[in-house]
Structure formats: structure tokens, C-alpha cells
């Protein structure tokens, strides 16, 4: 993917500048210099990736476009974050080798804060990163608490920049390297500050109010919202970030697929109570304010060339498909499979059947795992008369999507023709 190539190039550039600063032979003469050089490279690449990751976290519209959906941006943010974090962890480990060759004490002092100001900034930064990564991967915090904690990554990043700029290194000796690192870091910080500005001081979001909360079954509610000023224009299948201004609901924003279509004046989301924030949405009352940041996402039947498509929804993954079905033009041939554990779990079945009656090219199959077993690629291929040239859209639990994706690939479907939404952010 071209965007990933750009990220790789951006993080390799400092290494190239570094490589031309001194004869490479002098950087790799013996164990001490080799490990030091690797440590420096890890530091440079780690910092570049960290800077890029701040940009990825900024919910930028152009990234949504180039990554084929903001969900992919966040998936990459998570991946790049882990790589950057690991490189920054190994950065001091490689650098300490030269001290180990001299004395164990000198090596130990290297890790003790307070001996050297620039190093101390680095130690504090890395300590903060370890703590925050711990919250991300190992200690399960409530989403809103985690989200708040994760903002401190910017603080860790800032300290890391201070460390990079203060420490006497190739960054301090080469003006080009210095400005490159500063520029990338500056871009990252700018994006974060920009987002914070819009989140806390200025409103660049759509203002809506809740007009109706309708339970669809024991777990699922539909929230209907009406625009107060400007209406958000979107493509069916997209999602947005919702901030509910209500006493009973925490104030951080959450992404939801839109279950209404662009033809409707009011916006709807359909939410399953998973016992966390989604449960709090039951506390919403009509007239509660809503801030909507969107639309984002590239998951829509209109974004692919083929008009012969297979849609597969798993559970609450129905929402983007319901939106798409309502706006579907007649010239599309759609086989839609709605997989649920049991029929009682399914929502909007009547509406979907109505659409399939009106539009014979839209075939609706309700798939109850209790009656028919789990849906799989082979069954779908049989029922749809082959999958060869069709675009396949998947939305549902990650496990289901992953296994379906693999099954279709093994059936010979081009991976680029399988489209899915990453709901795990």
C-alpha cells in the first residue's frame, strides 16, 4: 500500500542522513561501535515512527481517504505504535553495550536518572511510555479512562523530543538531521494540538440532538438524532464519532456506523449493549445534545467497481449494511447474508425483507447459526453461484471476519476484493 511506503520512507530518511554523516566503516568497527550505531538507528527510526503515529491519531480526513478508511488508520496506528515502542525500548539497550564493555557500574549508571540531564529526559519519557503501553495492552481499563490515559503519550513524546534535541549525538551535530527530526516531531505535535483545540475549545463538529431512543430487542437500541443546524452528508456504510452531552453518559467520543441512509434527514445509530459505554446509552433522553465528527470510512458498496457483490453481516455488524440496503440502486446485484446466533437476535428483518421484495436484485438471507451452523465461505459460494468476480463486504465480530476472509482467499478471491471494517478501536 502506498501510504505504508510513505511511512517507511519517512522513517528511513533520518537513517540515510545519518549514514552520510560519517564513513560507515567508522561506525561499524567493533562491538562497541556497532551496537552504538544500531542504538542510534533505533532511536532515529523509533522517533520518526512515533511522530508519524501522532499524525495518524489526529483523525485527519485526508488519511481517511488514503488509508481507505479511518479504521485502517487506527489499525496502523496500533501497529506502528508497537513497532516504535519496541525500537525505543531497544535504543538504550544497544547504547548501553559500550558502557558494559568499560564497566558494569558505568552501564548501571546509564539507566539511573539524574546523572545526565538529556539522558534523564529519555528515561522519564520511556518510563511513561512503558506505563501507558501497559494500560493499552495488559491492564484493562474502561475505554474512557484508557483513552484519557493514552493522551499522555503526547507528553512522553514531548519528553522524547527534548531528549533527542538536548543529547549530544548525530542529531546535535548535523543541522539537516536536527531539522528533519524537529519537522516531523513538530508535525506530529501540531496535529495533536489541533485535535485538542477542536475537542476542547472550538467546535468543528455537527450539532445534533437526540429525538428518539427505540429498543429493537433486549440488547439493541436505535438512537435517532436530528440536526440542529447543518446536516451531515455521508455515504451509506460510513461511520462517525459521537459525543453525547448527557448526564448519564461519559463525555468521550465513540465511533459508530450509521444505520440510517443519506436520504433520511435524521441520523440513526444502532447500538448493542456490550456492558460498557454502550450500556450507558440507555440513559440518553430526547433533547440531549450530540456532537458528531464525521463522516469517516471507506466501507461502502459505491466505492468498488463490481456491481455483483456479496455482503455478510455478523450480529451488530448489520448497521452499515442496513444503511447501504436502504440507499441501494436497482442495478446492483447483492447477495446479503445476515448471520446471527439465533433469529431473535436479528434486527431490521422486516425492513430488509421489504427491500428485497421491492428490489429483486437484492437477495436477503437471514442465517441463524443455531439452525444452520456457522456461516462459512464455502456455503456462501454455493448459495451465490460462485464468488469469483464478486466484491465481498464483511462486517461483524473480528473473529468471524478473519475466518471468512481466509476462507474466501482460499477459494481464490482476490484479497483486494474483500472489504471489511475494523471495529476494534
Amino acid at each position: 500500500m502506498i501510504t505504508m511506503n510513505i511511512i517507511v520512507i519517512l522513517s528511513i530518511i533520518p537513517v540515510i542522513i545519518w549514514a552520510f554523516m560519517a564513513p560507515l566503516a567508522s561506525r561499524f568497527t567493533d562491538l562497541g561501535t556497532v551496537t552504538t550505531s544500531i542504538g542510534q538507528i533505533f532511536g532515529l527510526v523509533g522517533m520518526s515512527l512515533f511522530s508519524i503515529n501522532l499524525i495518524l491519531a489526529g483523525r485527519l480526513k485526508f488519511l481517511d481517504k488514503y488509508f481507505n478508511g479511518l479504521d485502517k488508520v487506527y489499525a496502523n496506528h496500533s501497529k506502528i505504535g508497537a513497532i516504535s515502542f519496541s525500537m525505543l525500548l531497544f535504543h538504550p539497550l544497544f547504547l548501553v553495550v559500550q558502557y558494559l564493555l568499560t564497566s558494569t557500574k558505568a552501564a548501571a549508571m546509564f539507566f539511573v536518572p539524574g546523572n545526565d540531564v538529556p539522558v534523564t529526559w529519555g528515561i522519564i519519557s520511556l518510563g511513561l511510555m512503558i506505563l501507558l503501553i501497559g494500560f493499552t495492552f495488559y491492564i484493562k481499563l474502561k475505554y474512557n479512562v484508557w483513552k484519557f490515559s493514552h493522551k499522555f503519550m503526547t507528553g512522553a513524546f514531548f519528553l522524547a523530543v527534548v531528549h533527542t534535541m538536548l543529547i549530544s549525538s548525530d542529531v546535535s551535530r548535523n543541522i539537516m538531521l536536527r531539522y528533519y527530526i524537529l519537522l516531523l516531531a513538530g508535525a506530529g505535535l501540531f496535529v495533536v494540538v489541533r485535535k485538542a483545540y477542536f475537542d476542547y475549545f472550538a467546535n468543528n463538529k455537527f450539532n445534533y440532538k437526540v429525538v428518539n431512543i427505540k429498543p429493537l430487542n433486549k440488547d439493541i437500541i436505535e438512537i435517532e438524532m436530528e440536526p440542529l443546524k447543518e446536516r451531515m452528508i455521508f455515504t451509506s456504510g460510513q461511520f462517525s464519532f459521537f459525543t453525547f452531552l448527557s448526564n448519564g453518559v461519559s463525555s468521550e467520543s465513540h465511533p459508530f456506523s450509521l444505520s440510517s441512509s443519506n436520504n433520511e434527514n435524521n441520523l440513526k445509530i444502532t447500538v448493542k449493549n456490550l456492558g460498557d459505554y454502550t450500556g450507558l446509552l440507555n440513559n440518553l433522553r430526547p433533547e440531549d445534545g450530540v456532537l458528531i465528527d464525521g463522516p469517516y470510512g471507506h466501507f461502502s458498496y459505491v466505492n468498488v467497481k463490481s456491481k455483483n457483490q456479496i455482503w455478510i453481516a455478523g450480529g451488530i455488524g448489520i448497521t452499515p449494511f442496513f444503511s447501504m440496503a436502504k440507499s441501494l440502486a436497482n442495478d446492483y446485484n447483492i447477495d446479503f447474508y445476515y448471520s446471527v446466533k439465533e433469529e431473535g437476535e436479528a434486527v431490521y428483518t422486516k425492513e430488509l425483507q421489504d427491500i428485497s421484495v421491492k428490489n429483486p436484485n437484492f437477495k436477503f438471507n437471514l442465517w441463524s447459526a443455531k439452525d444452520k451452523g456457522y456461516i462459512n465461505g464455502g456455503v456462501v459460494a454455493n448459495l451465490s453461484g460462485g464468488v469469483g468476480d464478486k466484491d465481498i463486504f464483511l462486517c461483524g465480530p473480528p473473529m468471524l471476519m478473519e475466518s471468512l476472509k481466509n476462507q474466501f482467499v482460499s477459494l481464490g478471491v482476490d484479497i483486494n476484493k474483500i472489504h471489511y471494517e475494523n471495529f476494534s478501536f
Partner: protein
Amino acid sequence: MKKLSTISLFVFGVVVIAILTAGLVFYQNNKNAPSSSALVKNAIDKINPNGGTVTLDMTEIAKHNKSSNCWMLISGNVYDITSFFGSHPGGNSVMAATCGTDATDAYMTKDPNAKTTSGGQDHSSRAKTMLADYYLGKLNEVIGSTKVNIPSSTSGASTSSQTSTGVPSNTTSVKSNTVINSNVVPASNITLTLSEISKHNKSSDCFLLISGKVYNITSFFGSHPGGNSVMAATCGTDATAAYMTKDPNATTSGSRSSHSSNATGMLVSYYIGDLNQTIGQQKVTSTNAVVAPTTRGGDNEWDD
């Protein structure tokens, strides 16, 4: 990706804990090693006609001028950094270039060709801590030749040796106990009054008073960039104004340019005492003998 983070964190944790533990144990062992003052006392004890001694003067330092046997002078202290080769973050070659020389400027600027201590970048305090591991003694100090062979693993000890043995930490304590020179003359004290200074008024025996400090610059004749005559004109006098203006006839320090910090650094080598201070006669007769430590690189920096 969680897996990658987990593995990295695990490796990081293990390595950091291992190094910190090892470093700490090492430090503890160090405390149990012969105390620092004992080590130096040991070295000083060896200064007798029978035991081999080495005078850490420039001639001796200059002999150790290759990476396989490398001494250098940094801020008046002599170091044997031979065993540090291979570990220098800045590489071996820059270090090798200064073997056997006064590397103060090079060390302060990280530039082997530097001629002043300004510009460039000083080494970190961590580097200074490491440097202490290689300390041999003060310039012109006489040490037991066995001490020269003391491996650098006695590092921590010699690090603190400076403070504990009372190496002068400021210019007024010159009369302290470090053995200065091997040609010790039976002591008889003189007081550095103006009348005493005025006795040393010729180029073959030249005292100067500059800013309240008395210098015996006799051995500097022949080395003054400004020539001998301007210097000779001020022998036996208060040369403060002359020094400040580079004009032997100046009566105020107002006009013209003063000597460089480099020159001031050199002047320190000729310091024998403060005005009206009573000092041992041998200080006066031994030329270029006393090295008053410069304020830079004071003892506190060596503490850890």
C-alpha cells in the same frame, strides 16, 4: 503487535534489571575494596629511593603516545586510558590523536584539533565519571610506578581518592601534602611580600604579582609569544595592569586587550602563592613545579 511489545518489554526488563543489579553489586564490592586513601597512601609510600617512582610530567606523558599505551593530561590530571580503547563512543581515532599530550581542549570540545576549550561540546558528566576510572595522578605528581599498572577496575576507588586525600581544591591550599617534585630542597619558608617579590626582578629569576597572586615565570622565558623583553620589564613588580593590557608600561588595566583564557590557563602553572603568603622555599626554586588546579574540573565533579 501486542506480542512484539510484550517480547520487547520482557527483554528490556531483564537487561535493565540485570545491569542495575550487576552495577550495584559491583559498587558494593568496590566499597569493600581497599579504601581510596589507602591506595594513594600506598602509592606515596612507594616514593623512596628504593622503589620505582614516576613523575607525571609532560615528558613522561609524552612517552605514552599510542593507543596501546595512552596517557593524557586533562585539566591538570593525568589519565591512563589505554584500556578504554574500543569503548569510546566517539571512536578510537579521535582519542588516539591526543595520546601523550595535553588533551584538555580536545576533551572539552570533543575536537582532537581544538586549541581552546570554547566551542564544540564538552563531554557529559557520565563521561567524566567514567574518565575517573583511569585517573593516575596530578600533573607533576610523583607516584609509585606500581600504581601505573593498577588496572582500571579499581576505578571507583580512585574516583573518590581525590577528595579524600586532600588534593588542593583551590589555589590557596597549594602548600598541602601532595609530593610535588622529586628534587626536594630542605624547607625554609619565605613570605611573598612585595619586597620579596622585588628581589626577583630579572629574567633569570622573575616573580610577578598579578591580581594578588604571585607567579614565578622564570622558566617561561623563551616561550612568551609577545617576546621576552616586555615580560622582563615587569619582573619583580605588580604586573597586573601590564598583564591585562599586554603593555609593560600600563598603569591601569583599562586599555588594550587582555591575555587570552588560554594564556591565563598557562599562567596557572607558574603560581607559587598569594601575596603575603608564607610558602616553602622549594616551591620557589623548583620551576614550573606547582600546578594549581584550575577551577574547571573541580573535585566535586568526580564524586558519584
